[in-house]
């Protein structure tokens, strides 16, 4: 679904990480780990097509891509429902209703509240609901577990398992103690270019 060969990204004329190679197939999870500042976020943004790799080949064959990063892409001035409705209209998807998704991620009580008033964990859940709205085949998750409580962490794992079961694929960057359980997991330990 997504394959990378010799991906290099330079900032200030220095590679951020060692050249990256992988081949991700349907139903597989690529778990990117590494210390703070080793370039996980940068790599995911390169894979997402936001950053342009300095050299190397990126080959994408997915029906849709969805991304949850450090900046969640939630409009503070819209309510949770409005945020999801907009994304649905914008992407032109039409699966489960927004209300159902909201209850799935446990935000029913604050669904009509403006996003600026959400707590950190509630915001994260809202971003997870948007992930489901997109109905994308490839998920790019940058530290999906941060700011979530125990129940929220389990929620991410459930959603992830369901997505992979249905033939999706996922690149997940994390440094936390928690790691998702999935048979088709490839560990990718990212090494900072500066360290090498």
């Amino acid at each position, binding site marked *: 679904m997504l394959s990378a060969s010799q991906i290099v990204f330079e*900032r*200030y*004329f*220095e590679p951020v990480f060692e050249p990256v190679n992988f081949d991700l197939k349907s139903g597989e999870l690529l778990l990117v780990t590494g210390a703070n500042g080793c370039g996980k976020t940068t790599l995911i943004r390169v894979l997402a097509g936001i950053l342009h790799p*300095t*050299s190397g080949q990126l080959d994408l064959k997915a029906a849709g891509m969805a991304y949850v990063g450090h900046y969640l892409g939630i409009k503070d001035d819209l309510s949770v429902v409005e945020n999801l409705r907009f994304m649905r209209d914008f992407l032109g998807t039409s699966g489960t209703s927004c209300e159902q998704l909201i209850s799935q991620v446990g935000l029913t009580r604050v669904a009509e509240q403006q996003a600026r008033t959400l707590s950190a964990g509630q915001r994260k859940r809202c971003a997870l609901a948007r992930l489901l709205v997109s109905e994308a085949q490839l998920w790019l998750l940058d530290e999906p577990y941060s700011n979530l409580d125990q129940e929220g962490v389990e929620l991410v794992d459930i959603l992830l398992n369901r997505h992979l079961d249905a033939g999706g694929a996922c690149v997940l960057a994390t440094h936390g103690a928690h790691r998702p359980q999935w048979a088709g997991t490839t560990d990718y330990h990212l090494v900072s270019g500066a360290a090498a």
Partner: protein
Amino acid sequence: MNVETAKTNKPRKNAFVMFIHKMGSPPWFYNFTGKFIPWFWAIFIVLTVWGLYLGLVKAPADYLQGESFRILYIHVPAAWMSLLIYISMAIMAFIALVWRIRIVEILAMTSAPIGAAFTIVTLAAGSLWGRPTWGTYWVWDARLTSELVLLFIYLGIIGLYNAIDEPRKAARAACLLALVGAVNLPIIHYSVKWWNTLHQGSSISLMGGSSIDTSMLWPLLIMAVATKFYYGANLLTRARVKLLEQDIRKAWVREVLKEKNG
């Protein structure tokens, strides 16, 4: 497109693109231009001394304006350069954006301060000249106004380039702005021209009208050529320094520095 991959797996069709890509190799550029720069500086100095001698000492005083007309030898070549450098910068900006060639980005961006400097010289010399001839430092004449707008656009490009940290990103953003400016500059030039004739008949005509005496013309032409060599020399000198700065950790720079020091 990336420089390295282009070099290895794309057959070259066009001689121009080939030249551009050859220029794109930093060590080649560094060594190639290194041979020219001293000559450029030398020619510039010789021509300037000669031109200023003819202009300031040999040429007779103007029967209307007296000695003050000699500002012409600074003002007019600078004015020409301010426009020419913008054109050259815009062309390089286009090449840099389309082919993502770092050296051309650098060249375009080092052109901007030189062009801005010439624009400031034009404005300053023109204002000083305006005082004795027009009785005021500044009027909102068409040519003056469009030169001022040109300065603003140069400053915008320089400001944007310096405001963004990552050098490649900064250069690409500023190159895009230079291109947008290039589309707009002629429009600005003509609109300002009309604006002035429309609102009030300007009583001042820049060119005193009649043809110019050859003893006054020659120094002007010499100075015009001299400023072009100055541009070339200054541009390449700055670009080489910038290239060394950016590649300071690359092998070829270490070699260059080793050669220099030992």
